[in-house]
C-alpha cells in the first residue's frame, strides 16, 4: 500500500541571487511497511527529499500525498500537527532538548498526542527499556549520555506516538561502530514490527538494513533496488546492493 506519493516534486533554493534546483520533478512512491533507504552522493538532495516527504519542509512545486492526503499545501501549524500524529524523526545530531531529562524528552513528544498520560509514561518506559536504557539513564540530561545512548533515546522519542513512518537522517553518522549497529538494530526491529522507516544514509552498513533503496543524484531518482527483507549477514543482499550502487555510479 502506498504510504507517500509524490508528483512532480521540485524544491529550489535561492542562494546569492542564484536559483539552485535541488529536487527536480520527482515522481515517487513509498510503500507502507517498507524500510526505504535513500542514498546518493553529497549534495544530491537526499535530506531535502526526506524533509519534504516528512512535512518538515514544503516543496517549491508538485504535490505530496501521505496516505492519500495532500500535505504539500498545509500551513506550517497543520504540518506540525501532521508530523506529531504521523511521523517520528531520528536525526544525525539527535536534537534532544538539552534542558530536559531523557524521559521528559520522550514525554514532551508523547503528551502532544495522547491525553492518557499514564499510558504514555508506561509506553515511554517500556520503549526506553527495550532500547537498553536503564532507569538511571532516563533521569539524566542528554549531554550526560554517550552519543549512542542519546540516539537510542531519540529513537524512543520518534516511536512514542506510534507514527506511521519513522524518518531517519544519517542516524549513525555521529556514532561509533558499536553504537551505530545498536541504533540500526533498533530501527530494523521497529521495521520488522510493521513500522515504515525512511532513512537517508551514505553508509553501506546502514543501507543494507533497508528493503528498498532509492538512489538520488542531482535532484533526480536515478534508480531503485529491491533488496528484500533484511537478513543479518546475507551476502546475496550485500552483493546486490553493491552492484546497484556501482550501476548508479557510487
Amino acid at each position, binding site marked *: 500500500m502506498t504510504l507517500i506519493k509524490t508528483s512532480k516534486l521540485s524544491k529550489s533554493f535561492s542562494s546569492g541571487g542564484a536559483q539552485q534546483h535541488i529536487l527536480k520533478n520527482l515522481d515517487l512512491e513509498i510503500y507502507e511497511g517498507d524500510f526505504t533507504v535513500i542514498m546518493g552522493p553529497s549534495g544530491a538532495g537526499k*535530506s531535502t527529499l526526506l*524533509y519534504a516527504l516528512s512535512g*518538515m*519542509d514544503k516543496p517549491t512545486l508538485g504535490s505530496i500525498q501521505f496516505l492519500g492526503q495532500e500535505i504539500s499545501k498545509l500551513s*506550517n*501549524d497543520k504540518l*506540525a*500537527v501532521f*508530523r*506529531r*500524529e504521523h511521523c517520528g*524523526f531520528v*536525526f544525525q*545530531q539527535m*536534537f*534532544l*532538548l*538539552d*534542558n*530536559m*531529562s531523557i*524521559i*521528559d524528552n520522550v*514525554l*514532551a*513528544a508523547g*503528551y*502532544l*498526542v495522547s491525553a492518557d498520560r499514564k499510558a504514555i*509514561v508506561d509506553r515511554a518506559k517500556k520503549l526506553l527499556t527495550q532500547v537498553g536504557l536503564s532507569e538511571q539513564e532516563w*533521569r539524566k*540530561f542528554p*549531554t550526560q549520555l554517550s552519543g549512542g545512548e542519546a540516539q537510542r533515546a531519540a529513537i524512543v*522519542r520518534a516511536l512514542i506516538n506510534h507514527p506511521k513512518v519513522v524518518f531517519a*537522517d544519517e542516524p549513525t553518522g555521529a556514532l561509533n561502530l558499536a553504537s551505530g549497529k545498536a541504533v540500526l538494530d533498533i530501527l530494523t526491529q521497529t521495521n520488522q514490527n510493521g513500522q515504515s522507516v525512511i532513512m537517508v544514509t551514505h553508509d553501506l552498513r546502514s543501507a543494507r538494513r533497508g528493503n528498498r533503496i532509492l538512489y538520488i543524484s542531482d535532484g533526480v531518482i536515478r534508480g531503485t533496488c529491491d533488496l528484500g527483507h533484511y537478513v543479518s549477514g546475507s551476502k546475496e543482499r550485500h552483493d546486490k546492493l553493491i552492484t546497484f550502487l556501482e550501476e548508479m555510479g557510487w
Partner: protein
Amino acid sequence: MKKLVLLAKANVRKAKGQTAILVMLFLIASMMLNIGIITLAGFGSFFERTTEELNTSDVYFIVPEALFNPDIEQYFQNHSEVTEFQINEGLQVAATFDWRDDSLTNGMSIQNKDEVRNLSQWMYVGERLSDVPDNAIYLPYTFDLVGGHELGDELTLTIDDEDFVFTVAGFTENIYQDRMLLGDTVFVPAQGFQELSDELAEYRTSLIFANGLENYAKAVTELMELADSPSADSPEGLMSTIRATDLNASTEARTGMPVMTSTMVIIFTVVIVAVCLLVIRFRIANSIEEDVQKIGSLQSVGYTSRQITLSFVAQYGLIALLAGLAGILPAYLMLPSLSDVLAQQSGLSWRPDLEPVINLVILAALVFVVIAATFLTAWKVRKVSPVQALRGGLTTHSFKRNYVPLERSRLPLTLALSSKSVLQKMRQSVMLLIILAATSFTAVFAVILFYNSAVDLSAFEQVPGIERSNALIVFDPAEDTDRLMSEVAAHEDVWMAQYMDIEWVHVEDIGTVGAITMTDFSTKVTNNIYEGVPPRYDNEVAIAGAISNMVDLGIGDEIRIGSDEEPFLITGLSQGMQAGVLSVSLTQDGARRISPDFTQSQLMVYLNDGIDAAEFVLEMEEVYYDEAFIVGDMDEAFAEGVSGFASIFSMVGIAIVAIAGFVIVLVLYFVLGSTVIRQRRELGIQKAIGYTTMSLMNQMSIGFTLPIILGTAAGSVLAALNFNTLMAAGGAATGLMRSEMLINPALVAFTALGMIVLSYLISLLITWRIRKVSAYALVTE
C-alpha cells in the same frame, strides 16, 4: 588592541538590534542623568551666583514709614554684627491685579527702579521696552511665565479701591521676590514711584538690607522698641509692624522644588542604569553561551581569556561611551523646558549653561560602571577551556536538576514546559523579575505622584503644611479681636473661625524662625505635626523636624526660645512651609511668654461646602472695612500656590511613566528577543516533533509572564509602601518630613495590571518571531 577592536566590532555586527536597544537605554540614562545633575548642580550654583551677582543681603527688613525714625538707622550703624546696610524706599500694599484668566489680591512691594542700590540689587529678565512709558512697571518674571502678562501689556493694580494703570515695560528677578513670604516685588521708574508714593503715602516703607546680622528676630524686637508708634490714621496690620526675612528662608523657598525634582530624576536614572547593567550582564552571559565554540576556537588559536574578556569590555564600553555622548545633546535640548517649568514655581529664570565638566564626569561614571560590570561578567570566559568550548560548551550547559518532571506533573503541557523553563533559567527569570520590579517601582511611583498632583490634590495641598482655610482676615490688633472672631464664626456660611498667627522668634543655635501660634492646635485642619503632639500649654512647643535634626533635640527635650531664652518642652515635630522650613508651633500663651504684647489678629475662616470664597471675601471687605487690614481668598491663593508644585510633579510623573514604559518595552524586546534567538535550536526541535507556533509562543510567553507578574507586583507594592517615605526623604529640602500622599490601591493595581498586560502583549509580539524558526533550518544550518 587592534584585535580587540576587531572582535568587539564583530560582536556588535552580529547583534545589531540588541546593540541598538542598549544604545537607546544608555542614551536615555545619559540624558536623564545629565538633566538631573545639571539641574541639581546648575540651579543651586545659579542661585548662589545670582545671589552674589546681585549682592543680596543676608537680611531684609520692611519698616513702615510711620515707625521709622533716625534711631533705627542708628541701630544698624552701631550694631556690632552689621558689616554693611542700605536703606531704600518702597510702598507695601495689598493690590488686586489680573492673573491668568482671573484676578488675584496679594501683598506687593512697589519699589523705585531708579534708586541706586549696592545691596540686594535686581536684574532684568529677557527683553524690555526701549521706549519707557511714563507709567512703566517692571514685574517679577512669574508674571510673564504664569500670570499671562506680556511686554507692552497694560496692568491695572487696584489698591484701596483705586485703579492704577501701568504698562508692562519688562520683567525682573531678585532674590527676595517671594509671593508667599513678602508679596510680589515690582519696580516703577523714579517719577512714577514718586507720584505713587505721594498718593499712597500711608503705605510708604523703608526697605533695609543688612549683612552680618545673626539674629534678625531679636533685631525686629529691638527695632520695634526703637520705632515710633504709628499715627492714628495710618493703616495698621502689616503697616504697624516691622517684618523681616533672610537669605536662608528665601533660598529654601526658591530652590527646594528644583532640588527635589532633580533628585527624583537622578534616582530614576540610577534605576535605568541598573537595568542597563543587568541587561548587559544578561547579554554577555548569553554571548558566552551562544558563542562558546567561537570562544573555544579563538582560544585554540592563541587568544587569551583576558583578550576575549577585553573584547566584551571594548564592545560595551564603546556602546556606553557613544550612547552617553549622544545623550548629552537631547539633555541640553530638554533642559530649557524643564527650566521653564521650574521657573513657574521658583520665579527664577535659570538658563542652563554648558556644563562640560558635569557631562564628562557623568560620561566617565557611566562608562566606568559599564566596564566594571562587563569585566566582572565576561571574566567567566577564563573558565571555558578550549576543548570543552569546541565540544559545545559543557561548562555553560550544566543543567543540574530536572524541574517539573513531566512524568509526575499534572500541569497542562504548555504550562509544565513553561514552568520547567522558568525554573531552569532561574538567573534569567530573577534578572527579569528584578528589572520589572525596578521599572514598575518607578512607574507606580510616578503614577502615584501624578495622581496626587493632577487628579486628587487633597493630600498634595497638605504638603506645604499651610492651614487649609477658605478665607483669611487680618484684623487690626487694636480692635476687639475676640468679638470679631465670634461674629465671623456666627456667619451662616462659616463653620469655623480661629486665629493662627506667625510670630518671629529666636530659637537657640538656629536663629530667627517663624512661630505658628494658635490658641488650640487641636482644631487645626491641616496637621503639620508628623510626630508627637502639638503644644497645649504655654511651656510646650513643637519644632520643625529640620530644626530637630540641626540641634539634635527631640520630643521630651527642652529648647530655649526668645531673646530671654525661655525654656520650652518639645512635644512634637512639625513639617511644612507655613512659617518657613525652620519653624516652631506655640500656643498663644506660649507666644506671650516671649512677647508679652502678642495679640492674635490673623483669622482663618472655614466656609461651608459650596460657598464661594471670593464672594465671601468681598462681603467681609465691606463688613469689616474699618477693622480688617487684609481679607484674602485662600482658595484662590491655594490654587495658585499649589499649581506651581503640582504642574512640576505631574510633568515629572508623566515623563517617568512614559520613560518607564519605554524602558520596559526595550528591555523585554532585548531579553525576550535574544532568548528566542538563543533558543532557536530548542524551538526548532519542538517544531520538528510537532509543536505549533502558537503553543511555543504561549509556552515562552507564559514562562516570561511569571517573573513579569512577580516583578511587577513586587515593584508596585514596594512603590506603594515606600512612596511616602521616599517623598519625605526627597522633600527634606522643602521641609517635608512625613508625606501622607494618597496611595490609591485600585490605581496601583491598575498600573501593575497595565504593565503586566503590556509586558505580555510585548512578549507575544516578540515571540511571534518563533513562526520564522523553522524545523528544517535546524537540520540544514
